[in-house]
């Protein structure tokens, strides 16, 4: 039964991915990628990776979709015209990469194999000892926060750096933005020149 659900969900993901390639409307692309993430989170849920499923649903399907829509608000919904030139070369590259990846997948341990290397290295220690060593019922939390605390610090720094990058690139502060719109529009009359940060209407040449 679980196998059937897995297969159906994966087919759904494949269909979403194919639709993503062919759809030209950017709004539909964002929605489809949200659906893709939500399906992936369902798959994680079926594999009992609840924490990962939670993150995927919150970040992949939630925030990423909202940010995509916000970006769409900036650049506008444009239907890009399909390129006329032949894309045979790209197809060959994708085909070869796919064949190589499928070949490599043959060497991977079988799905759910208890003797897979990943289950024989440090995982038994986490499962058997973390209750005494860390004392947190959720092993995922004890691995994430304690055993692998240094990695998680790196992840936090990545998030911090991403926010800083967005601020540096797009977060230019124009002084009037710091004030509520009404105050700026009505209470401060730019023509009176009462405030040195409000550009006058004919001041464009100075600013640009």
């Amino acid at each position, binding site marked *: 039964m679980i196998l059937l659900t897995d297969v159906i969900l994966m087919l759904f993901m494949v269909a979403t991915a194919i639709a993503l390639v062919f759809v030209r409307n950017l709004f539909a692309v964002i929605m489809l990628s949200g659906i893709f993430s939500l399906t992936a989170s369902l798959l994680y849920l079926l594999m009992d990776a*609840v*924490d990962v*499923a*939670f*993150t995927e649903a*919150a*970040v992949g399907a*939630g*925030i990423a979709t*909202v*940010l995509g829509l*916000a*970006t769409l*608000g*900036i*650049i*506008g919904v*444009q239907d890009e015209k399909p390129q006329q030139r032949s894309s045979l070369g790209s197809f060959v590259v994708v085909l070869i990469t796919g064949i190589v990846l499928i070949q490599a997948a043959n060497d991977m341990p079988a799905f759910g194999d208890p003797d897979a290397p990943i289950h024989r290295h440090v995982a038994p220690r986490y499962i058997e000892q973390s209750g*005494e*060593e*860390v*004392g*947190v*019922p*959720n092993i*995922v*939390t*004890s691995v*994430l*926060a*304690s055993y692998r*605390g*240094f990695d*998680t*610090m790196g*992840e*936090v*720094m990545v*998030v*911090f750096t*991403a*926010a800083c990058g*967005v*601020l540096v690139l*797009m*977060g230019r*502060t124009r002084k*009037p*933005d*710091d004030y*509520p*719109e009404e105050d700026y529009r009505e209470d401060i009359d730019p023509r009176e020149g009462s405030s040195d940060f409000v*550009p006058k*209407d004919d*001041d*464009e*040449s100075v*600013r*640009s």
Partner: protein
Amino acid sequence: MMREKPILRVVSKNLIPPIMLFALYVQFHGDFGPGGGFQAGVIFASAFILQSLIIGVAEARRVARSALVRSLLAFGGILYIGVGFAAVAMGGNFLDYDALDPHDPVHGQHLGILLIELGVGITVATAMITIFFTFAGYEPLPSEPAPDPNREAPEREDLAQAVPPHEGRR
């Protein structure tokens, strides 16, 4: 934005407090069930995003002041690293929570995990709020018109007259 849609506004307004409460639950219940700082931060930020979708980004920014949000963005990371150095100061390795409570290492682990998850949650929440506000509140300057395929790029002098400053807001 949606001032004229009372149902959306009332429903969303009533949803925001439970969303924040759920974020706090996910944050502090991460030791026992699924969840933790990353998920809680994203959920907490989504409350602010929902609010700014209803009342507009400019209004939402009056609640989440950018100075406060940016300070908290840095504070979360500092809290995390600070816990690491606190462990060093108390005689352990970096991020070795056992050293936080010399008498009861498991209690030290609990304390350390609680604090660093709080740091993660604060940084992720404020980072998401910052990124969303930056994207949603972004307006091209009058000197750089928004891409519009149907319009030819006007000359620079024409542009100053065609688009008066700050006219693009409404």
